């Protein structure tokens, strides 16, 4: 999606402020929002690609004017509202007007260490032959669907070199929208001065992880 979330290379933002982090506190809404999302998404059929995309669907002005964990709030209520699990009236008051069916049990605290230890594996067995190998020259396509994608705008149309093949991984473009499909995933290195005309270093590189369908031979 050509959204404001696709920030790589955008002009207009100032210096990075390396403020120290505030420690997580149970009384702090930022921390609670972070943990609410981890607590409701984990046992569900929701997936990280849809979760990310739901935030991308925020209007640009709202995205830019909301702080980080407030954007988590908006994506989560979007997901829950879309699923029919919550209504606007309920979100306003915090009081349930109905109890949704088929939500199962909430994630128990005892399961947290298991999820932490195990993580999530997006790799899948190969179902074909990878089209590219390290050293191959590839061009990022002009792939700009309305839906989810992880091809950043700044790489589109540019030629880079395959650094690594990471094996086959679940493709966000389809997985976000309910269809799990896997493709070879590559780390592609782009010379910075070929991406950005103002760069003077002849050696600096930007590496982007790109699925095979985002690429064509160059």
């Amino acid at each position, binding site marked *: 999606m050509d959204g404001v979330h696709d920030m*790589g*290379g955008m002009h207009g933002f100032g*210096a*990075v402020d*390396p*403020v120290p982090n505030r420690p997580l506190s149970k009384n702090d*809404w930022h*921390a*609670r*929002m972070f*943990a*609410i999302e*981890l*607590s409701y*998404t984990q*046992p*569900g*059929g929701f997936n*990280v690609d*849809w979760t*990310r*995309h*739901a935030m991308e669907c925020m209007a640009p002005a709202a995205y*830019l004017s909301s*702080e980080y*964990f407030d954007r988590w709030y908006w994506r989560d*209520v*979007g997901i*829950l*509202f*879309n699923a*029919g*699990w919550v209504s606007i009236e309920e*979100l306003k*008051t*915090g009081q349930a007007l109905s109890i*949704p069916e088929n*939500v199962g049990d*909430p*994630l128990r*605290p*005892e*399961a947290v*260490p298991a999820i932490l*230890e*195990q993580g*999530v*594996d*997006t*790799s899948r067995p190969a179902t074909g032959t990878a089209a590219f190998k390290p050293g191959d020259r590839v061009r990022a396509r002009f792939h700009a669907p309305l839906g989810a994608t992880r091809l*950043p705008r700044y790489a589109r149309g540019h030629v880079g070199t395959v650094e690594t093949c990471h094996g086959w*991984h679940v493709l966000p473009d389809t*997985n976000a929208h309910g269809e799990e499909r896997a493709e070879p995933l590559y780390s592609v290195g782009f010379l*910075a001065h070929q991406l950005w005309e103002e*760069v*003077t270093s002849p050696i*600096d*590189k930007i*590496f982007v*992880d790109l699925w095979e369908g985002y690429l064509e031979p160059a």
Partner: protein
Amino acid sequence: MIKSCSANKFDVFATFQDLCIDASVCCGGDEPLKIWHRAIQGIDLRGKRQVSVPRDSKRMMALQEELHSHLPSEAALRVKALESLLVEKGIVDSATVDRWIDAFGDEVGPKNGARVVARAWTDPAFKQRLMDNASEAITELGCPRLEANHLIVVENLPQLHNVVVCTLCSCYPWGVLGAPPTWYKSFEYRSRVVRDPRGVLREFGLDFGEDVEVRVWDSTAQIRYLVLPERPAGTEGFDEEQLAALVSRDAMVGTAKVAPPTGGG
């Protein structure tokens, strides 16, 4: 709940997948199974969430508009109401919310990554395993694998500096570094570090000559990156614990170097 470990592993994990962010779970050999069995023992995982609703971008954009136009502006109020609501509906357990906050406050953080770096500096065989398969190697040190299941370590050298970003959102190797710092998630960092990495690094106090190659790693997939910083001078004879104490979070993202020890060292 655990039907069998010998059948197709995707079937085996059909229940466990409900625990995960995605219906996608590690199936890399027996070791993850053991970890999972250990951690999950005695936990009742009844109840699967079946979520088969349209996941349509235009619909989500419209819902976002609608939500924004009706809900109050104060985030703290909205989050409080959301938690109460989800608890009442049986979707979230507040004790689990607390547990996650504890985990990211005390158990998961840059100390994990610092131990990995210190081990790599002192144990060449470990370093080799780390460079070959970082996710396996960090498990040796007991680091969790959430958001570190496909970890790649990139090594800084005198003529090569690595720095990590996620321009599209805020992907970060939680298992080794915990939750990302505010600056990492900022629009300023996300927009600028791929375009002017040297300028951004100067804001962090790092200034590299033209003979040093700067590499930026944009975490656009589920691959996560950890920078292995250079071991500072003056640390000969330091043990792992002393070395780990020198390694900052920012050094493992690539916006700092590991400073030599001060004072008596």
